């Protein structure tokens, strides 16, 4: 059904944009490299493809006059989320361009800011592209050409946003979001494990690792007790 397809596309777009945001955070920092720029480009292009596809579907759905009120409300909700996604994407793309220009990887080299982020982000980009892993295949001066491409793509996205506003009239204030405040807490258990990330340097351990240590210790203790009992019985 059209609604399910739209929702799936929107979810994929949302994922790509979140990964793109995560990658842009590290531009100019110590993790910046040609690989990162390539990952940015791939994620960006994927996000744009998804955006074009979603837009086509949503526009077709909203332009359909014979849509019931409930269906229309549903599509309007998706539309509002979609335009929000596009705004986020455009802002991140602009910022990425500004940062890439300010911290070029080719000569004249400016020292990158030593932020403490050292690892690669191939996993993030792979997640965005819904692939298992990512192969880096760019040549040396990749980022120079990439800058020009970025400018064109930013213009394309701005045009898309403008077109959307002109062609489809969805008053945002009438849209009722389905999620209420605190809805994110009702998510699956997958989100709870992220609570293990502590932002402060804690002298004490976090609870899950404490539980793990306790179970390991008790298992070792039990094994030792069992061995001692066996030894006592045998002797």
């Amino acid at each position, binding site marked *: 059904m059209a609604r399910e397809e739209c929702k799936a596309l929107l979810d994929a777009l949302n994922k790509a944009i979140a990964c793109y945001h*995560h990658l842009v955070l590290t531009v100019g920092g110590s993790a910046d490299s040609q690989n990162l720029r390539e990952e940015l480009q791939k994620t960006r292009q994927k996000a744009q493809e998804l955006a074009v596809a979603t837009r086509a579907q949503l526009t077709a759905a909203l332009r359909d006059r014979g849509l019931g009120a409930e269906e229309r409300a549903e599509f309007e909700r998706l539309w509002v989320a979609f335009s929000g996604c596009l705004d986020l994407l455009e*802002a991140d793309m602009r910022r990425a361009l500004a940062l890439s220009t300010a911290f070029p990887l080719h000569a004249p080299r400016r020292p990158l800011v030593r932020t403490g982020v*050292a690892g690669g982000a191939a996993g*993030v980009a*792979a997640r965005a592209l819904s692939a298992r892993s990512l192969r880096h295949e760019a040549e040396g001066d990749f980022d120079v050409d990439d800058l020009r491409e970025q400018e064109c793509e930013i213009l394309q996205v701005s045009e898309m946003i403008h077109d959307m506003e002109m062609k489809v009239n969805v008053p945002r204030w009438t849209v009722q*979001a389905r999620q209420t405040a605190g809805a994110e807490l009702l998510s699956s258990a997958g989100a709870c494990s992220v609570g293990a990330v502590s932002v402060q*340097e804690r002298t004490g351990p976090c609870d899950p690792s404490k539980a793990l240590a306790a179970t390991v210790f008790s298992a070792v203790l039990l094994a030792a007790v069992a061995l001692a009992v066996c030894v006592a019985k045998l002797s």
Partner: protein
Amino acid sequence: MAGGRPGAQMPHLSKMERVVVSMQDPDQGVEMRNQRLRITVIPHTVAGSDVVDWLVQKYCISEEEALHLGTLLVLHGYLYPLRRPRSLVLRPDDTPYRFQTPYFWTSTLWPAAELDYAIYLTKKNIRKQGALVGHEKEHYDQLHRKISHTWDLVVMQAREQLRAAKQRRKGDRLVIACQEQTYWLVNRPPPGVPSVLEQGPERSSCTAGRVQMTKNTEFYKREMERYRKALTRARVKSSVCLEAYLKFSSQHAPHDPIMSGCLPSNPWVTDDDTYWTMNAPSVTVPTKLRVERWGFSFQELLEDPLGRAHFMDFLRTEFSAENLSFWEACEELRHGGQAQVHAMVDAVYQQFLAPGAACWVNIDSRTMERTLEGLQQPHRYVLDDAQLHIYMLMKKDSYSRFLKSAAYKDLLAQAVIPPEAKRRVFPFMRKLPHSSPSPALLPASTSGEPVAAASGPECGDGGT
């Protein structure tokens, strides 16, 4: 911090960025250490004392200044402390700091958006499993009300961003979380912490931000216009201004209730409103201060209804009362309703200006011509010239005679000076407390008394 245009990068931020970038130089930058967290090792930690030493050496400044500069860097979020993230100060010891990633550098070009803040708070809510506290909880609720239509997007993005972060190593995850936290501490400071991004009021004469690069004809035209206007501005010598100001102050000082107290008593202090009843607009016997005030200027006399009435009586004795009547009629026209303008102009013309009118006023021929022309298209300011002429006539002529007249002198003699209200006091008080305490009158030694005198039920009604 002078006001700047919103949407332009403030100059002090660009300067700070340059300092931070020069700190990154691998040969001449700041010394970096590693941070050891149980199993993970995170590089690129810098100690507060190292930062101060580097600044002292690079810019040849004193240690105090380097400390201040370093604190500014921390306050604006370019460096963040690792141990106590909410306390944004630079300590010149081995407290560890780290540099902020350029994406999160404080920027007025990319102001922090509400949607981003909502996503951040939602992420925090997920991580803390619903235990947001304090101002963050309030902001979260506020944002939910403000942008409830995009809340779906907020929740989706928050979840996805957390999942994307899980693809990184633990050390990187920690660092990125710290960076984001610092960014929001700077852009949405907790209550009680002043915001570094506040821009002061825009100063209209500040042209620093408006330097136009291309000096084209538009630019020169505007400059010429600006200077032409500046030439026509009226200028008064400051010595003249100050003399007039001194004269005004010395003349009006006895009349000011704060500077000289008011008789019989200050109604706000003693709850006795004799002062107001004695100075009501229409009272039979005015106070002496009021009558003296009519002598200061013609404007004062006309503004006081009682003074105007007495002036009118005086003019009647001189057979020139029509001047004042004309002036009053013109005032009514100026301040009256728009619908009555036509009717009033006609009435005024018939009564005062037409040849052979009942109360014909003596206006010079040129003004009369102009007025009669203007009467073809009447509006509320059409009689302004004539009114001004009559006003100056009265001021130069009748007003000075009024002040010298017997009528005025009688008024002065009959004017009443209300006695100061007697306060019921405790028998052992050394000094009679003032019934209208004035900070200008009281010497410092009696500062305790007005506080006692102004309280409680013993400041009763003084005698009138």
